[in-house]
């Protein structure tokens, strides 16, 4: 379990990073390394060059505005749980970030791993890919021809596969703010605390001024080949938040997903959990939505 030989570059600027990525075929960007390094050690990946972006300035920022939260490429998971000065502000603007991040692996991994790195890794078992989909977020990508914004639907094309090709560095991810009169919740079932979820669910419930449900959106972890966002409004739309039948939303969700089975869970079991977690997270999100909707 030792990596195959590779060249190592630690550029001091984005321009320099893109130069190396342009010059060296098969170069990979290294940020927190929590997914990439195990792959190298098991020789499941053997890139010719690693471009370590940890020395690139300006990538460790968290910006929370009324529109949403922008998370820089070197922001560690734990920063969003209080490690960063903007963590509280970010949690107010988009509470799903911290709620999902609390489910990411173990403290040691959260200290090193980055939010943006886990999105660029495009693992459908990752929490942050799911949150990006749920919040209708996007990433900003630096390429030799300039900066681009790529929406989550265009970014994720398959398990561990993004649409990015050629020299590119994802410099930040943007998570739009939780809408007004909305509540959010995130929950997982994992075999052991900190494991990849057998199934995870994130939901957003939005009410109108009369506290009727106007929108229900859900996204799942470890369900499907790429992160998806599902609209569950049909099951509960128009109902008063107190009277909404969240189990019906769970039942609808079960019909919308297409999970796979693996060693830890059959497809049927995952589908069961989609229903249960949808119902439970919606009940919790509804309480928050009601609190944020003046009577």
């Amino acid at each position, binding site marked *: *379990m*030792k*990596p*195959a*030989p590779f060249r190592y570059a630690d550029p001091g600027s984005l321009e320099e990073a893109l130069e190396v990525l342009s010059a060296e075929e098969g170069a990979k960007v290294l940020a927190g390394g929590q997914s990439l390094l195990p792959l190298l050690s*098991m*020789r499941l990946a053997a890139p010719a060059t690693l471009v370590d972006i940890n020395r690139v300035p300006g990538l460790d920022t968290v910006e929370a505005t009324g529109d949403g939260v922008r998370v820089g490429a070197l922001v560690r998971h734990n920063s969003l749980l209080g490690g960063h000065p903007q963590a509280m502000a970010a949690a107010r603007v988009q509470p799903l970030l911290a709620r999902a991040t609390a489910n990411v692996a173990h403290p040691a991994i959260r200290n090193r791993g980055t939010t943006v790195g886990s999105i660029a890794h495009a693992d459908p078992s990752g929490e942050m890919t799911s949150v990006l989909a749920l919040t209708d977020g996007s990433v900003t990508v630096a390429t030799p021809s300039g900066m681009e914004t790529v929406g989550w639907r265009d970014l994720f094309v398959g398990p561990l596969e993004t649409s990015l090709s050629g020299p590119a560095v994802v410099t930040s991810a943007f998570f739009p703010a939780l809408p007004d009169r909305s509540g959010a919740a995130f929950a997982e*079932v994992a*075999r*052991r*605390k*900190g*494991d*990849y979820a*057998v199934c995870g669910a994130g939901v957003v419930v939005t009410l109108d001024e009369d506290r009727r449900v106007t929108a229900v959106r859900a996204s799942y972890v470890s369900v499907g080949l790429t992160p998806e966002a599902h609209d569950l409004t049909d099951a509960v739309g128009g109902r008063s938040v107190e009277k909404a039948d969240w189990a019906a939303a769970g039942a609808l969700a079960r019909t919308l997903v297409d999970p796979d089975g693996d*060693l*830890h*869970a*059959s497809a*049927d*079991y995952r589908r*069961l*959990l989609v229903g*249960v977690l949808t119902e439970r997270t919606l009940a919790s999100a509804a309480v928050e939505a009601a609190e944020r909707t003046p009577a």
Partner: protein
Amino acid sequence: MTTKLFGEPVRRREDARLITGRGRYLDDIGPGALAAAFVRSPHAHARIADIDVDAALDVEGLVAIYTYEDLTGPMAEPLPVLIPHPQLHAPRTGYPLANGEVNHVGEPVVMVVAIDRYVAEDAAERILVGYEELPAVIGVDAASAATAAVHGDVPDNVAARHHQETGDVEPALAASPHTLSFTQYIERSAGMPMEGRGVHARWDADDGSLRVYTSTQASTSVRAAIAAKLELSLDEVEVVAPDVGGGFGVKIMHPWPEELLVPMAAIALGAEVKWAEDRREHFISSAHERQQKQEITVGFDDEGRLTALDAHIWHDNGAYTPYGIIVPIITATQLVGPYVIPVYRVVVESVYTNTVIVTPYRGAGRPQGCFAMERTMDRIADALGLDRAVVRERNLIQPDQFPYDHHLTFQDGRPVVYDSGDYPGLLEKLKALVGWDGVDALRDDAEARGKLLGVGMALYVEGTGPGPYEGGHVQVLGSGKVLVSTGLTTQGQGHETSFAQIVASELGVPIEDVEVTTGDTRRFPYAVGTFASRAAVMSGNAIALAARGVREKALRIAADVLEADPEDLEISDGVVQVRGTPGASIPLRTVAVLSNPLRYAFDEAAKQATQFAVQAKDDEPPVSPGDAPGLEHRDYYSPIRSTFASGAHAAIVEIDPATWEIDVVKYAVVHDCGNVVNPMIVEGQVHGGVAQGVGGALYERMAYDSDGQLQNASFMDFLMPYASEVPDVVIDHQQTPSPLNPLGIKGAGEAGVIPGSAALASAIEDAVGRRITSMPISPTELYDLVRDPSAERTAVAERRAGTGAMA
């Protein structure tokens, strides 16, 4: 006596060193050594057509490549069958490097030595081995179906048919008022020590000697194996077990191929060579345990008393049988537990599969035996509508029945005669500890919270401390330091502390003065090893006897000096004194100096023993006939048979009927290992055992696919429980001393793991009302079980449904 430490919860003396990074584990040794890496079979069963190393030869830093063709003499012969047995009629072992055929994924085929491990793996990756695949036999059912054979000359895949019986079981069953028959399975797991295996070897060409460090549980036997296989004289080989980061049985298996190949390369290359196993290698190359299929038929009367028991077990021994049929024997003989079984017959068919070898993993066949017996008790209770504790109670061997002879033959070739115990006492304590009689109230409370609650229990008897022997050496130095050594190894059990406690108590010295060395053949060349919960029983008693020998000699010398009768002397805090006569005393360190008559004074203390300082008698030699210089003694303990520890576990589980997650909300243990040297260490052993028991019941399995590929060969997918998954454990003790050894102790190392699967299966079955016939069980499997219309409902669940006590 202020130094009486036996039985005290002395804090582990080794921990400060180990937890602050000052341990010296295998990979800490020889940082500049050449590194070995292995090309291992990617196929479960294949013939090797050719091996092409050409592409590897260009790798800069490559030192050597070895295949089977490079092995000579005994190295080219199969590895030893370590523990032969007449019923092991078709033993098979592999070669250090595969000889034309591979029988499991992970079997070593080529060894590469290079300047470091990175380069060794670069070269290994370039070696092309051509394979012709053969059909793979995976799992006990495929092995017994025998549509394909693992070894061509063993067409039925049966390595051994182990058979014991205490009477004529068929008529006894026929005459029984009730009988039950059922089949159940238990899966593979493995010990998974934090530190994998590893070997470092250094050849001293000037000296003509080999020093080998290996992460082993049996350094003396590894030494003998290396000497035999490499055709060296025993005195040319020394083997040292450094700090070992866990063993759990996988390191009692030996010699592993690497333990022979690394020294072979060190000699051939005249250089230090090291191999430190990585985790993936450990999963696919080091031993597993536990898979069995069990067919049980039991006869019993209206009160639930056993009349006869017939067990037919298929045991998956993996690709080879280097460790003989020890695990099958232990299952067969420990299955009987604390119960009176009028007639018992057991047949264990040990079968070959194309998987990693199966050798003892903590518990070593006992968890499976306990699973068979305890689930039998649960079924009898269910069939008769009796409380599960009541059925057990009615079948227990009573305290006045000891010594109790089961008329079986144990793993040490000796009779299964229980030395002592109080099983009704265990059961009473367990019921009180877990709140057995109050569970219905808990059940109702859980139901109100939307949870299904269940409780289960399991009892066991564990044969511990088998022979043939261990030894101990105790030496008092002129400085007052007391050096203690024993040949068996330590891998985290706290021997430095518990052995020091024994010596401090026996000798009357402060524990701070005692230094313990284990597993170093330079210090103590005669030993068997650390396994079968035997270290405290075997080396503990040997060391105690050695300390008593030192004490006797010290008193004799001191009596001379003090002009007193040895009978009137006592040793306390390292000082020998005349009992009741203050001032009439001599420090033990001075006795040590005087014990060795000297010509040369190399330090101040030594002056006292030189020839003009000592008042010698002119007509006697300085060293009396029959005596020896030095205050030291070596002694051995060899038991007539094993001593039998016992215990009882109970678990309460809560199950979420929406997600089928299983939460162990209480885990109670009552434990009896005779006299306890250090209760804190014993509790630590129990905690660790319970963690592995819970792991084996709810989380871990070796997930082989039908091609023999291990699907979960990493800690990401092999779910060893974290601290967050292991329940809090409440422990109560009972001490029934063993009459078989001077200290009255029984082993404690494996106990905690034994009843886990049985107790948790019982608790889950109690919660969901469906028969659990296979362990481990995960939430996804439980979900499948509860919605399977053909799954058997327990009678108690039907009765509860009838009374409306359960939905």
